[in-house]
């Protein structure tokens, strides 16, 4: 299974600031290894973010995103104590779901 994400979620004024660090090689499929063989593409394709049981982000990602990427966003209407659930799926069908609680 893929390695866990690091999620930070904190209220800033009337919105929640959520930042997530994902553990992923994000291979583009365009690189070659030392032997000259193409390194197969391996990247996150879809990301969803649920806050307090409500889907706030449903997004697509592709090969232009770095290895071990960081995403940050603000969610209006969220409150301290809400649960944040982040989920990704990559092109090999591997996936990972992690949770955090918004702090005050």
């Amino acid at each position, binding site marked *: 299974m893929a*390695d*866990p994400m*690091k999620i930070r979620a904190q209220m800033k004024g009337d919105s929640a600031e959520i*930042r997530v*660090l994902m*553990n992923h*090689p994000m291979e583009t499929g365009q690189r070659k290894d030392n032997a000259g063989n193409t390194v197969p593409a391996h990247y996150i394709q879809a990301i969803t973010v649920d806050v307090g049981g409500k889907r706030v982000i449903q997004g697509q990602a592709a090969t232009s995103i*770095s*290895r*071990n990427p*960081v995403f*940050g966003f603000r969610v209006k209407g969220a409150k301290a104590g809400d649960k944040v659930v982040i989920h990704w799926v990559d092109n090999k069908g591997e996936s990972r779901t992690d949770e955090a609680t918004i702090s005050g």
Partner: protein
Amino acid sequence: MKHRLSMLMAATVMAAACAAYAQQPPAKSAITEEFEKFREVLEEDNPAELFEAKGEDIWKHAKGPDGATMAQCDLGLGAGVVKGAYVRMPRYFADVDQVMDAERRVVHCMVKYLGYKEADIRKQPFSNDRVTPDHVSVVTWVAGQSRDMKIAAPRKHPKEIEAYNIGKEIFAYRAGAYDFSCATCHGADGKRIRTQDLPNLRRPEEAIRAYQGWPGYRMTGGFMLTQQWRMNDCFRQQRFPEPTYLSDSITALLTYMTVTANGQVYKGPGIKR
């Protein structure tokens, strides 16, 4: 006569001003300040945390062939004590009768308690874009447990003093195709390589710059590198033969540099371009 006297006086005043200036640490250039801002922004979300998490998992949950865990590992403050241990190494360890730096000690413990093979670790001591050796993650976690603490490497035991003195000597030792030493680049104020200012590692307030940010996450390639790697790379840049991994000479060099930086605050694992 009066004219000559005033000239002489002016020259004396200027010499005094130069002397005062020379004692000040060099002013930061605009470029250095921009780099620092850039680094600050990145430090907020440093992927090094992902490696800290992996290291913590190994430290707390991995078991050796006979059920031993890293809780038995003494980093100098007692078995299993990790908080503040990183900034108090390199230090003398009585059980091995040797001075060890953090990475060397962590590898020692992983071999002793978790059943890792030293030969395997030596085969792949550093990370690349495909592999992060387990001990690199553990060192990253151990370093993170000394975040925002003052560096306080001991220099009391005769072997610690010896390591410091040898390190000081290595720092100034000129050799290789370019007749280089560490001090060629890091022994005077105001040196730079391309746009990067080079710290004078003989000054405590600048010696911290060789310590700060390691272990570091390198964005180019996206992997975690340790201080041992950094020392290897310095040797490579000087066109020295590649040092043996975890050798006495690197520990000595790290002892010298860490002791010089004593009293400065360590910010934890860093991020590098």
